[in-house]
């Protein structure tokens, strides 16, 4: 316990000493060639391949893609929450210079919740039904800081107030089933942010909520991030949510990052045919009652990934040459895409 806190103190002072002037600041998180595979009866099944991205301090990044593209496992791997018996992680996860991929389980525990926190899609299954929400929030704090129970409770109440829960003194003593879905997600956010982490990984945090409540939660996440300087990785399939919450968007397809760009740029002019296809599939962008665009075919199975561009079989722009292996190409200083035709293709985005 005390050991864990010492470790935190060390990282915190290192982070605090990071110079923050001019140019691009030192990234908070740098994921380098992250490849994940799961052990199966038929050998290792590759899930993601050479995922690379960086997150600057305070940045809000949307990680998007269809189900099965590897966005959730990528999020889980940052916190090393995948089962160690079956998941194999290769590559580096540099957080403030420390490689999380090789950290001992004990030191990793000091990072979880303290430096990087996570919230999930279904708040009810992430909360323990037999403890009050106040107990659970203060536990998240007391794991990392040696404070008394009463002080933990005070901090839990303050955290509940911070996320906009009315009457936090009363709510603190309630059980998860007494709260609505939106309130539970606010509790999860309070718990995630109580240690003032530098990075919050939010995996589909609003998917189970109604649009009116979703709007409340995305606004809350954005304003908390702006106010506290917590960086945010927002994993979602909803491009509208990314547009309203994030500053950058990373598109994943079939286990690879295929595009990484500032949100406004990618919505206006996507550079990868898959991102363009996703944007064109949104019903709001087609003529009312007109034929909706869609992406033909389906994501190839992880056990039968084609060589070269993985999107090739579904891509309307595929030509000879796409079967070659596709590196990420830099298009502008802050934009990359995994498509060798990206410089010449003019792809439709969210704006006509």
């Amino acid at each position, binding site marked *: 316990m005390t050991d864990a806190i010492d470790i935190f103190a060390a990282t915190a002072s290192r982070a605090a000493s990071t110079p923050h002037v001019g140019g691009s600041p030192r990234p908070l998180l740098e994921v380098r060639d992250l490849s994940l595979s799961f052990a199966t009866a038929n050998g290792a099944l590759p899930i993601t391949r050479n995922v690379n991205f960086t997150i600057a301090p305070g940045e809000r990044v949307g990680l998007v893609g269809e189900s099965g593209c590897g966005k959730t496992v990528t999020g889980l791997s940052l916190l090393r929450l995948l089962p160690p018996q079956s998941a194999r992680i290769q590559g580096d996860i540099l957080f403030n210079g420390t490689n999380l991929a090789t950290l001992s389980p004990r030191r990793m525990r000091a990072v979880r919740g303290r430096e990087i926190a996570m919230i999930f899609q279904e708040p009810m299954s992430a909360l323990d039904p037999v403890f009050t929400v106040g107990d659970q929030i203060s536990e998240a704090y007391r794991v990392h800081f040696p404070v008394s129970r009463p002080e933990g409770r005070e901090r839990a109440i303050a955290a509940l107030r911070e996320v906009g829960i009315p009457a936090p003194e009363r709510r603190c003593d309630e059980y998860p089933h007494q709260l609505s879905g939106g309130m539970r997600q606010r509790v999860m956010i309070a718990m995630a942010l109580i240690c003032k982490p530098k990075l919050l990984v939010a995996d589909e945090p609003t998917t189970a909520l109604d*649009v*009116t409540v979703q709007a409340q939660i995305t606004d809350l996440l954005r304003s908390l991030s702006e106010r506290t300087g917590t960086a945010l990785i927002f994993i979602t399939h909803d491009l509208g949510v990314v547009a309203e919450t994030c500053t950058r968007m990373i598109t994943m397809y079939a286990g690879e990052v295929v595009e990484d760009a500032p949100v*406004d740029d990618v919505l206006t002019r996507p550079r990868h045919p898959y991102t363009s296809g996703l944007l064109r599939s949104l*019903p*709001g962008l087609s003529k009312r009652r007109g034929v909706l665009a869609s992406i033909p075919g389906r994501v190839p199975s992880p056990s039968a990934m084609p060589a070269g561009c993985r999107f090739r079989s579904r891509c309307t722009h595929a030509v000879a040459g796409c079967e070659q292996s596709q590196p990420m190409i830099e298009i502008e200083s802050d934009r990359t895409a995994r498509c060798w035709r990206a410089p010449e293709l003019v792809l439709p985005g969210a704006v006509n």
Partner: protein
Amino acid sequence: MSSAQNHTSDSGILAVRDLRILFPTRDGRDTVKAIDGMDFEVRAGETFGIIGESGSGKTTLGRALVSLLPPTHGKILHDGTDPVTLGTGAFRKHRRDYQIIFQDPNAALNPRMTIIDSVVEPLEIMGQGDNASRRRRGIEVLERVGLAAEAADRYPHQLSGGQKQRVNIARVLTLRPKVIVCDEVVAALDVSIRGDVLNLFADLQREFGLTYVFITHDISVVSHISDRIAVTYLGKLMELGPAEDVVEHPLHPYTRALLSAEPVPLPSHLRVDRRIILEGEIPSPVAPPSGCRFRTRCPSVQPRCTEEVPAWRDVKPGHRVACHFATADGPPPDNQKAQRAS
């Protein structure tokens, strides 16, 4: 198709009259007012969209429309006939015209039955044809919804979510229904294939003259495919009108707030920040607020809203709304904005 095909009554293909559906709470002391007074008609051949938050009663309504739930009060007329009054045999024959497709394509298919067996099961139950002719018809329909004949002898787990939803569509089509209630049919599908399935629905409507009741919480989907849209809130209709009017010029404060909450995938310079953040969440249907149900979250609430239930009235031709203060020009002004202006 049945002889009733050309028989049209003035009440529309589906008519809902003062519908109430109540469920007792678990302790039996109270009732959940899932549907608490709804009146509307669905016209033959149209796509009637229903939007609302969870807990607004839209799924209960969908089930009631196809006689899966009996009305507690009021009635639902199918082409002028009240199915409750039909005898068992007549009811069974009647209900093939009114079918439903559910949200979860996995849960709707029996994992131990092959696709073709699931697809022809309704025909078997109706006692139509022999095995060979049913199989022929099943394969025909599978091909019509875009599945290769090879899929017929597979099991559900061998198909993707989109393919499974196509199987569910095929199964309903074998009966050649007149009305299909679609309850969140694309919610479980990825965006990239949603378009395909929605296009299929549109094609089938043209081909078979189907009437759809499309229930969804996804505003972009409902506004894309619907001719008319109804907005539900806590067991009541708040607004009903032509899809374009409801989406572009909503008259009820709730519709306006609901539409503004929908996240838009547009770059920041093109986004108009007209978002109205609704406070709190939908109240419990066990004890809905007095007067107007939306008043506890309404940004335009007035004292009258607590006392009086707003009438379900025509504000424009074909555009109904349940709000004391809505006019043909739009919803009443926001209290805060009105205050700031004065």
